[in-house]
């Protein structure tokens, strides 16, 4: 069946490198869903973020969004708005909040929460269809979130 999103196994390296990493349960969202503090404490790498956004096995954001800057990636979805100009519309803190847990910015959003580990209904073990117990590994680790945010910040009209 359609594997429209697949998430790569998370490496444990990220966890070791960043003593300052904010754990998913400790992320502070403001009233509008923004997150001021870097999750990893290490500046994001926009090029790596672009790869994550386009990669079926990682963020796969293009399953739902068109991204003009990644025009070479085929089959971009049309569930959410095109991300062109996202860096103009949102501050870095807002983007970090949207990617970490979009539901704090857009109530009831269809967009998955990429840095959340609990509070699911019938959580599964990745795509096996089998049960998994919480906390789940988040869909992306802290540095991946920072890399994606760095890439989104470059998307200017």
């Amino acid at each position, binding site marked *: 069946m359609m594997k*429209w999103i697949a998430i790569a196994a998370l490496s444990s390296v990220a966890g070791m490198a960043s003593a300052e990493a904010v754990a998913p349960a400790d992320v502070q969202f403001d009233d509008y869903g923004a997150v001021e503090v870097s999750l990893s404490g290490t500046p994001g790498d926009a090029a790596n973020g672009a790869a994550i956004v386009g990669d079926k096995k990682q963020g796969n954001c293009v399953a739902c969004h068109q991204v003009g800057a990644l025009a070479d990636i085929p089959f971009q979805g049309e569930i959410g708005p095109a991300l062109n100009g996202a860096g103009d519309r949102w501050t870095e803190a807002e983007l970090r909040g949207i990617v970490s847990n979009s539901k704090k910015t857009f109530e009831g959003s269809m967009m998955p929460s990429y840095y959340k580990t609990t509070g699911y209904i019938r959580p599964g073990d990745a795509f096996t269809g089998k049960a998994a117990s919480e906390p789940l590994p988040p869909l992306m680790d802290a540095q991946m979130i920072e890399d994606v945010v760095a890439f989104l910040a470059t998307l200017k009209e």
Partner: protein
Amino acid sequence: MNFKATLACAAFVASVAPAAFAGEDAELVLNGEIPIVTTAPAPAHLDGVLGDEIKSGWLFRSDETQATQMDDFDNPGMIFVDQAQASWDTVEGSEGKSCASCHNDPAESMKGVRATYPKWNEEAGEVRTLAMQINDCRENQMGAEPWKYDKGDIVSMEALISVQSRGMPVNVAIDGPAQSTWEQGKEMYYTRYGQFELSCANCHEDNFGNMIRADHLSQGQINGFPVYRLKNTKLNGSHSRFKGCIRDTRAETFNPGSPEFVALELYVASRGNGLSVEAPSVRN
């Protein structure tokens, strides 16, 4: 009808099939003689959530996939119907009976049956899917082993029975004793399962017609089941499709034949009340 023999010339038939199809506006007439309703007024219980119209999944497929379903000689699902006709006539079990012993010719006895399933069975006091009814006859009428849910034998038999209702409107009852099961299915339809927190409605109600990566989202209707999928080259039951869709939300899924999927099937079928029975349909 013998579909096996005629399939050999499918290639020739395909080459003379009309070339022009129009995606979501296309019209489906099977074998040039059975008109199929692929767009129908939305049933009242939907309260407008899908707009005015419900649509068959056939409309959302590519021109080539659409064409494969238009003629039984091209439709690979018909091979399984042919196989089920043989098993219809086969004696099995302690009572020395076949389906034919009691139901004679399925073209007569099974006409219209598929359109009303899942349905309430008074004696058993339960909502039964077509598969459950077939297995009930095997166990309690024939003294034979039940077939495994959504596996080859039973899905083929469902296709044979469904073919006798092609072109007739889906018409499952949702009130009376079936209502609580229907409500359970409805609740599941709107539950956001798994780590992606997605409900059936997120994709098939709010986003039908949109692309999700390479997939063109339909309304997730089941009037075409069992479905021949080009992807796995076999007939598939609706519970297997439900299972795949839930698994892909990174959730713990349910099993084919489970009470949960029986309830979900009743509810999803009722969202298609008014569309024609199309099985075996062809999808990617």
